[in-house]
């Protein structure tokens, strides 16, 4: 148990390193500005949003295609499936025929749902 926690302790430390190294580059760049090696000449035109040379009309809010939500729903179903599949796959050799049949029944139900979604054209991008 202690080993287990120590592994994740190292992982926690590594998260710090993984964020720290790239973030330090931001800091170095900032230092370069303080040392006058990096220009800093702000102007209102520079701070505008990019819009192919025109002034931006409207804000960032825009309509989204409803399809994005369809895919999100499908994703949820199949990702939850993966949660069941992974432990089953790892221990499959110990579980035997019963597990095989049971998982095939589970998958078959999902496949039926998948075919239904396909037939209902939920997978089309229109």
């Amino acid at each position: 148990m202690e080993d287990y926690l120590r592994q994740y302790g190292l992982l926690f430390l590594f998260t710090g390193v993984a964020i720290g190294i790239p973030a330090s580059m931001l800091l170095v760049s900032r230092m370069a500005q303080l040392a006058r090696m990096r220009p800093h000449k702000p102007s209102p035109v520079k701070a505008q949003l990019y819009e192919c040379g025109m002034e931006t009309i409207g804000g960032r809010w825009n309509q989204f295609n409803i399809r994005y939500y369809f895919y999100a729903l499908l994703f949820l179903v199949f990702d939850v499936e993966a949660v069941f599949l992974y432990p089953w796959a790892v221990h499959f050799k110990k579980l035997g025929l019963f597990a095989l049949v049971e998982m095939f029944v589970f998958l078959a139900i999902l496949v039926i749902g998948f075919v239904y979604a396909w037939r209902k054209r939920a997978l089309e991008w229109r």
Partner: protein
Amino acid sequence: MGPVLADNSIYRDVYSFFVGFMPHQLWWLAYLIAGLTIMVLLANAVLLNTAVFQWMERRLLGRFQVRFGPNRVGPFGLLQPFADLLKLLLKEDIVPEAADRFLFTLAPAVMAAPVFLVLAVVPFGKNSYLLDLNIGLLYIIAVGTLSTMVLFLAGWGSGNRYALFGATRAVAQLISYEVPMVLSLVGVLLLAGSLSLVQIVEAQRLPFLLLQPLGFFIFAVASIAEMNRGPFDLVEAESEIVAGYHTEYSGIRFGLLQLGEYAAASVPAAVIATVFLRGWANPFVPLGWPDVLPSHLWFFLKVFLVLFLFIWVRATVPRLRIDQVMGFAWKFLLPLALVNIFVTAIEVQLWRQPTTAQLWAMVLVNWVVAAVAVGGLSRAMERHRRRPTASVAPVPISVEVR
């Protein structure tokens, strides 16, 4: 007492080295210092690998397009990535006023973090790994997904419309390709019986590329899509949405986003090399050749082989439309992944402890199944595409970007 992390690992060696200098009660200090030493080494290896990969990609793309590519800075242009980094460090830092300053800064800072974190569990050579998590592959998938969240952070934080479009596309693409990617690894798990990458390497008597051709194909395609590289680079399609999520970024912030993107390519490359190509193992030892080269060399050779494959695909296949991208994930890769699970599960059920002859039989069956499934499904899709869709009313052409 002290931590006994993964007996034969390089971490253990470094830990014993440091703990020798310290009084017994300070083992936790040795634990931290040993960890930090390996972490800094690992992080630098990732950064250097990224620089080499970026150079390689630009040179090879140049070759593919019958031009030279960068060849001025250093021998063969090898120092180009470093020159670029220096240039970007010294560029003016511009934050648009509509941007959310905190998110705008946070996104580049954490962009590369998932890549580092994922590579912590990958064995780079015999016994050379930071951690041997027992949930290795699951951890890789979970943490590897985070980089898309960072893209969304960047797109949202920019306050720019195109950036947000790019970010939503990135998320939609991730969501679609995550499913076949996750399912394609189930076959490997069935064969290996473990999620730990170290044990998966040891479980491969034959490389899983031979035993799992479908799994390899699906995983490779899905991971190209997940890191938003060509031909799936809709997220930053210049002709449609300027530059996608990094439209507003410049200077070192842009550099860090690019770093994260290029570093992200080494994650699937390392995973494919480990899971499908037997990781650090010398492929010629079973043939009776002497094992002279260090295992790390074999690992990096395999990683760069996969990276070359990614570059090749990018140079060859043109960018897809969004309906093609989505359809490919759901209608092509997902059924193939399910077929792969069914076939592999039945095979493992039949041959619990396969002999070498049975393994080769498995290879034969799996390649035939892969060929039939890929060929049959592509022909079915082709027929479906050609059928006139008279019942569907013509859709008015919309000029709106989505």
